[in-house]
């Protein structure tokens, strides 16, 4: 029997109210509870690196093997100020949208510059070898 999988769409408003550290903790806490998150506004590059680093610390071979995360960047600033900032190397490297979930529940099928196709893996979890 497939287990239930929870998907949360997290608003820009909620994410904007958090510090980088809070965002990383929030994402990791949710993912460790088997939730898949779709973030309306993704993480910036340093936050992504911090999330990977924290994920490595939290890996438990018998319960949590890591995360699957995919995002895409908005490379073309629409307004003139955004273009100037990008030209000056000050543009944000923040992802436009990010999907993140437990690595044994979420699998990326295809990704290009503007879309992400992912599959949620059903069925029972792979049985962990107990020691």
């Amino acid at each position: 029997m497939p287990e239930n999988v929870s998907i949360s769409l997290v608003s820009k408003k909620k994410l904007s109210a958090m510090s980088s550290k809070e965002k990383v903790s929030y994402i990791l806490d949710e993912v460790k509870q088997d939730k898949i998150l779709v973030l309306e506004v993704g993480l910036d590059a340093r936050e992504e690196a911090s999330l990977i680093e924290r994920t490595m610390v939290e890996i438990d071979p018998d319960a949590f093997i890591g995360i699957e995360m995919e995002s895409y960047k908005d490379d073309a600033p629409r307004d003139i100020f955004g273009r100037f900032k990008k030209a000056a190397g000050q543009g944000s490297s923040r992802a436009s949208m990010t999907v993140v979930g437990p690595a044994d529940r979420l699998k990326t099928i295809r990704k290009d510059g503007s879309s992400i196709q992912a599959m949620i893996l059903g069925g029972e979890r792979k049985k962990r070898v107990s020691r």
Partner: protein
Amino acid sequence: MGLVAVLKSGTFAKWLRRMFGKEHAKIGIYGPPNAGKTTLANRVVRDFAGDVMGPASPVPHETRRVRKKANVEVKANGSSLTLDVVDTPGIATKIDFHEFMEVYGMDEDEARRRAKEATEGVIEAIRWLEDVDGVILVMDANEDPFTQVNVTILGNLEARKKPVIIAANKIDMPNASPAALKNAFPQHPVVPMSALTGYNMDALYETMIKTFR
């Protein structure tokens, strides 16, 4: 010493390099597991220092600690640059010890130990991003370029304004598509090469001297 003698001795050129560019740079070799980072590091170090960095293997996460080789003088087309070469563990978002058992036939203890060391290696590699002056990002030219690890590493280097070269590795394989990497990351120099066969290493060395000086 007269002006002509100074120019001939190369002192002036050295002074110019010190004023306007680096004479000695710490270069990190980064990428996802199994992209060929250690094979490339070995190739660079063997070509210019007659040594190797460490063992390379088809099993992911063979390199689980950062390795350094100091004072490697890379030469190409009459120019040179002295580098400290830093070979880093592959960066990943997930590590499952089952993969080492099921795909690579390791026993459980060995697989668990490797997975644990691999997580520590990823953390060490990410922390080293602060310390390097530039990066050779090794990507497998046979794989999708838009992986999260590639995007995250590039984003971090761009945010830190550090120079990066993309080494489009494994172009000796039949499905290699270095053009896909060039199209994916037009803002960075992309050098199609094979660390295993040594194909196009001269072009990589020229690009390294140009980019990291």
